[in-house]
């Protein structure tokens, strides 16, 4: 299995791991958002979505372990890349200017990544590792967003997520080798649209729950 470690451990291999796990998270976000949107149909719809989801039992545990595995790969590889890339230019330029290649997303990738990691920890503490006896998930969520501080943190985190995705999504295709003159403009467009969907779709929910229900 030396060849596998050699391939995945190379700079392109690490790129590949970032791309595949990142694409996995994009898929997860799409599913998570679809579920969350049931909130607009009222608390019963949302609670019943949560119930149906949890009735899947072992499948959910499997998916959670899968996500955790993906997260470990994404975080450890990303951190390694961050340090290696810092080390590759020990002496910085005194004048820094770019030629228009970099975007706010590409420029901030490691930092938005670390912010998202701390957000995910908070998010799991808020809604996952929480005592759910004698209450419904809607009550827990609604209760949390009664605190304007949480609303602000969640909205901010979703903007950060959108910035991360705006570079991450099209990067997946470039990294997988799927850069084609015919399709790349479309992929870049989808990248922007998907990050806006994440920002607006997730980001508006806390505001809606806090001030409009």
């Amino acid at each position, binding site marked *: 299995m*030396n*060849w596998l470690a050699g391939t995945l451990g190379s700079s392109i291999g690490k790129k590949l791991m970032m791309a595949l796990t990142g694409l996995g998270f994009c898929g997860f976000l799409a599913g998570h958002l679809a579920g969350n949107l049931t909130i607009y149909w009222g608390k019963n719809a949302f609670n019943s979505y949560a119930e149906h989801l949890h009735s899947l039992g072992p499948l959910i545990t499997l998916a959670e372990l899968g996500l955790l595995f993906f997260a470990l790969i994404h975080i450890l590889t990303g951190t390694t890349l961050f340090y290696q890339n810092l080390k590759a230019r020990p002496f910085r330029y005194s*004048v820094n200017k770019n*030629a228009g290649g970099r975007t706010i997303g590409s420029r901030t990738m490691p930092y938005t990544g670390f912010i998202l990691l701390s957000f995910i920890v908070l998010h799991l503490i808020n809604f996952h590792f929480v005592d759910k006896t004698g209450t419904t998930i809607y009550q827990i969520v609604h209760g949390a967003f009664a605190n304007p501080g949480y609303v602000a943190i969640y909205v901010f985190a979703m903007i950060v997520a959108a910035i991360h995705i705006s570079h991450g999504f099209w*990067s997946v295709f470039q990294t997988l080798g799927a*850069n084609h003159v015919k399709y790349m403009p479309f992929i870049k467009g989808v990248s922007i649209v998907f990050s806006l969907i994440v920002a607006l779709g997730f980001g508006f929910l806390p505001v809606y729950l806090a001030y409009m229900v």
Partner: protein
Amino acid sequence: MTKTINLTLKIWRQKGPEAKGKLETYKANDIPTDMSFLEMIDVVNEKLTLEGKEPVAFDHDCREGICGMCGTVVNGRPHGSEKGTTLCQLHMRHFSDNDTIVIEPWRSRAFPIIKDLVVDRSALDKIIQAGGFISVNTGNAQDANAIPIPQETAELAMDAAACIGCGACVAACPNASAMLFLSAKVSQLALLPQGKPEAARRAVSMVREMDRLGFGNCSNETECEAECPKEISITNIARLNREFYKAGFFSSEK
């Protein structure tokens, strides 16, 4: 009558690889705007020499944009801010009177500074030595039409082969990665039938050598293709990725 301009230059001066360098300020007065950037430095150097001072060391050779020898970072941009040109093709008409110009060497762990603006780019040669070639048995030349190559493919290979190995991609990359260089060198051979037999070994050993030399990792910032004097596209990097996956996962290459 040729227009002339006066400039303030801040040039990186460093006596040797181990010495501590710093930006020093020089005046360049009455510079004709028809001059190239390198000729402007020549003028400064002549003045320094006459004053008995050490002239600024910088790399240059053909001065017509094809050898890949010249290159410094001018106001934060490798080869200056003009698109698709090397430093020797940058003319002083793109600057204004009383401009301040900061001139720095390529900065990368893989490119140690030799002196002033001169860096050691032999790391790029080592990447080529690791597999950027084809092995042929010499003998009679083949018939020119024996290996049909579509015009489009030949053009793509030629676009990749336009890389002059100046290292601007490494200098421009926020991660000091050499992926654009490597992708051009892998692409020019992978696209043609002559390059196919050794494609897998080439991709694996060149990537491995690049990693070993201390270049950074590509994170698709795309600064390289924007700064490349030969306008090499990052579609070559996508092709390199495909070549590497093919070699790593589907060939017997270890």
